[in-house]
């Protein structure tokens, strides 16, 4: 079943239309996959027909299926707007390159999520990272190169760490298959080598995750990449890393190992909370809106980490929900920013003056996305916040519940800075000519915005899948 996903690795015909078809197909397949997984449990596919521990296995359970759905759906919607957006931001002759890289990156992300083989994860991770560096470097700002380079350095360190970790695990167990690893690791769990492997993998993943304080690459990478790339990455790239974190700690190393032998819970909880506050505060002081939302992403990752560190089924559900919901929010927000970029060519806060009047539809999208970020009821943000607070209270950590809610107040502050500038400041001189963006841009934006509201009201899909996934992880883990 996973094989069609790999089709993208073969040379695709290099046009926008084809990309959409490919991505759309991936989306359809992941919908079907999700349905099937929810109905009948884990699906596995052996590549090259070698049996599992030897050959490369693709393995889809609820968790993967959810991630596949997020990635492919966001990618399809974002691609719809791509044609319009990159015409302004990327020189004509690089368009083909852009689409190749985009599809490569998409395929690699899907690959990371779908594979059941630890080394394969690393391979796909490298593919996705390399294409990401190139995509970011396509940004028309000179800073883009520097941002890409920064990301390259940090990303490579992260990938190397992961590779070392996987290597050590292989040395101890002689297998690379995740299911197999999880059976064999406990036998050797008390050795120093496994601890080292674990530490390397976790730190490596956290680098990719942009978890505070390892987030330094993220704001610049998001801010200077082409808008489409930002929208795509913001919604998916870090999600894949969160997936890896969950996969490694829960499936590979097992819950008891991950959290009893190391003070991981405390470390993650503290880092998550500090991340929420530090990044939100940083977001408040940004003058570039892309930077602002990039820092907000770091803060949102903090929420996911907090939920994750609770190590309860409810906490993990909250994390997964937030994963899904945050993809929707940030996808919508960065796409809307792309629209602003398309019209006024910059995303500096001061250039937003009066945009509330000139681009009312786009700004309304930003406001709704922002409200979702704050966690106002009837948006997805509220659903994840509700679960997170409930999960924290379940464990009895009241002060942390207060801190989480305080964090969302910081979101009010940075979202409202934009609102005030856009709606209260008079328009800039010569801004009369600014119009709304073309329909081709508007439709994807509003698809995501409406998804924000829809999944905030009808939560059956997201909540059920997240619950099933977290329960299966807790059930499976030894």
């Amino acid at each position, binding site marked *: 079943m996973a094989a069609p996903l790999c089709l993208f690795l073969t040379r695709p015909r290099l046009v926008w239309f084809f990309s959409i078809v490919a991505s759309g197909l991936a989306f359809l397949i992941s919908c079907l996959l999700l349905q099937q997984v929810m109905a009948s449990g884990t699906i596995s596919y052996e590549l090259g027909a070698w049996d599992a521990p030897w050959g490369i296995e693709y393995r889809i359970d609820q968790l993967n299926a959810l991630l596949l759905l997020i990635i492919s759906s966001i990618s399809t919607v974002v691609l719809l707007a791509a044609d319009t957006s990159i015409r302004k931001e990327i020189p004509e002759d690089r368009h083909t390159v852009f689409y190749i890289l985009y599809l490569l990156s998409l395929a690699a992300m899907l690959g990371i999520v779908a594979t059941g083989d630890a080394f394969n994860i690393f391979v796909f991770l490298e593919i996705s990272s390399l294409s990401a560096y190139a995509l970011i470097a396509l940004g028309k700002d000179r800073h883009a190169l520097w941002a890409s380079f920064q990301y390259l350095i940090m990303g490579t360190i992260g990938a190397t760490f992961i590779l070392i970790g996987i290597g050590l695990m292989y040395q101890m167990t002689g297998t690379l298959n995740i299911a197999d690893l999880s059976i064999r690791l406990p036998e050797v769990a008390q050795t120093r080598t496994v601890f080292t492997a674990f530490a390397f993998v976790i730190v490596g993943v956290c680098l990719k995750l942009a978890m505070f304080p390892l987030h330094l690459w993220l704001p610049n990478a998001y801010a200077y990449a082409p808008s489409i790339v930002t929208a795509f990455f913001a919604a998916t790239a870090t999600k894949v890393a969160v997936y890896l974190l969950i996969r490694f700690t829960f499936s590979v190393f097992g819950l008891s190992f991950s959290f009893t032998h190391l003070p991981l819970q405390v470390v993650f909880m503290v880092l998550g909370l500090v991340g929420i506050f530090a990044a939100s505060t940083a977001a408040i002081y940004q003058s570039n809106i892309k930077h602002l939302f990039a820092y907000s992403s770091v803060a949102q990752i903090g929420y996911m980490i907090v939920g994750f560190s609770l190590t309860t089924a409810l906490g993990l559900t909250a994390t997964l929900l937030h994963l899904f919901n945050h993809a929707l929010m940030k996808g919508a927000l960065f796409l809307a920013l792309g629209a602003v970029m398309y019209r006024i060519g910059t995303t500096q806060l001061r250039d937003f003056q009066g945009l509330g009047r000139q681009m009312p539809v786009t700004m309304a999208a930003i406001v709704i996305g922002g409200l979702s970020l704050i966690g106002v*009821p*009837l948006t997805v943000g509220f659903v994840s916040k509700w679960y997170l607070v409930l999960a924290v209270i379940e464990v009895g950590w009241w002060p942390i519940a*207060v801190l989480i809610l305080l964090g969302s107040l910081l979101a*009010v502050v940075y979202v409202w800075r934009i609102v005030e500038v856009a709606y209260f400041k008079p328009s800039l001189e010569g801004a009369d000519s600014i119009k709304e963006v073309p329909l081709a841009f508007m439709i994807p934006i509003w698809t995501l915005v409406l998804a924000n509201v829809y999944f905030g009201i009808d939560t059956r899909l997201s909540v059920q899948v997240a619950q099933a996934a977290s329960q299966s992880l807790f059930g499976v883990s030894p």
Partner: protein
Amino acid sequence: MSLSLELMLQLSIILPLLATPGIVATGHKPNLRESVTIGTSLVLLYLVFNLYLGLKQGASVSAHWGELLPGLKISFHIEPLGMLFALIASFLWIITTVYSIGYMRGHNEENQTRFYACFAIAISSVMGITFAGNLFTLFIFYEVLTLSTYPLVTHAGTNKAQRGGRTYLGILLSTSILFFLLAIVSTWFVAGTVDFKPGGVFDPGVNKLVAGSILVLFVFGIGKAAIMPFHRWLPAAMVAPTPVSALLHAVAVVKAGVFTVLKVCVYIFGIDLLALLPSTQFLLYLAAASILLASLVAMRQDNLKARLAYSTVSQLGYVTMGALLATSAGVLGSSMHIAMHAFGKITLFFCAGAILVAAHKSEISEMRGLGRQMPITMAAFLIASLSIVGAPPTGGTWSKWFLLVGTMETGQWALMVVLMVSSLLNIAYLLPLPLRAFFPGAEASSADVGMKEAPLPSLIAICITTVGCVVLFVYPQPLYELAQAILAAPGLAHGK
């Protein structure tokens, strides 16, 4: 009557929302736009009134809109307290619309379409709050109300409006997210449900300390009730056009706050449990302090709207205090005070707006001798002031009476004194204005300007609400019955 009550209940929430596109679409034709608003408000009142009749006959009406999260439904249920509030809000919406036609045109305000559209959304969410069947539904509409009134508060678009809006949104959103949401989640966690039930949802054996803390979270979290120290948003919201201050910040928004407090006290905690909680006493004194301090601050305000705003803060303290007294007389007084204060305060705000439009005055010190120019407005002001003070022949008498009985029943003598002193303070900061307006004294310049009242629609609105103040004194029976039903008849207030 062909519609079923259930349908009417849902319609009454959706209807104002449906009117919004209509208002926006007819935006370039002011007359049409305003008839859409008025038409909607009339239909709304009709619906609410029919619901009232249905409730009186003992019908139990509820509706469900499906589950948002497992176990958390959006559901609506009619009970007497909500009915009371819905009647007031829908009735005063009509009056306010009539008034705003005069005011907004007389004052040449811009963006009137946005004004009417947001107003309709706000009313829709107020209806949602009044009929909410559980805390969760209430919370949703509570937040929608905050957000939909933000553009109204910042209507002027000036720096001052922006600052006011910032305070408004900042306090309301932060208290609701930080405390209110936490209180709801905790209730959910402790009691396993957030439905409103007569007698409360908590187990009688619940840990008093936990329940007490949740109560504190509720009272602080419902920022719209403007208990000090979270009252700053209300004076800040006074930058809004006067009809907004009148309906929203004397009736809809603040009343939504105290209404929620009352509802939480009666249907989440239950007055029996409430009386036992350790934090109730503390909150009672906080409410008392809020009453006194706000009255004292009100005396020092020269801007009429600011003075009225602080007076509102103080009066809201009455309602909160009544609810926390946890006796039937207290709850009775509180719910009646919601109605009485609504009529009194909206009249006062209408007058303030009329003075601004007709005489272009906003400071109290400038209003000496205004009685000759605007006799009707000033007479209305006098009567409404009496209602706030609680003197006959106005409706305010009754609610204050029951509140006093409540304090005596529980032996809270200190609180009784607070209520009395506060009445005196009310006299001190409200009555001098109309008196000086009519009897300016010798030193006032008697530049004879002749009579120049506010535009006719505004004047009509003022007269209706003033008459309302008096009628509520002579004929408080339906209101009393409704308020009594809140506690007395569990059959009526049968929760789901």
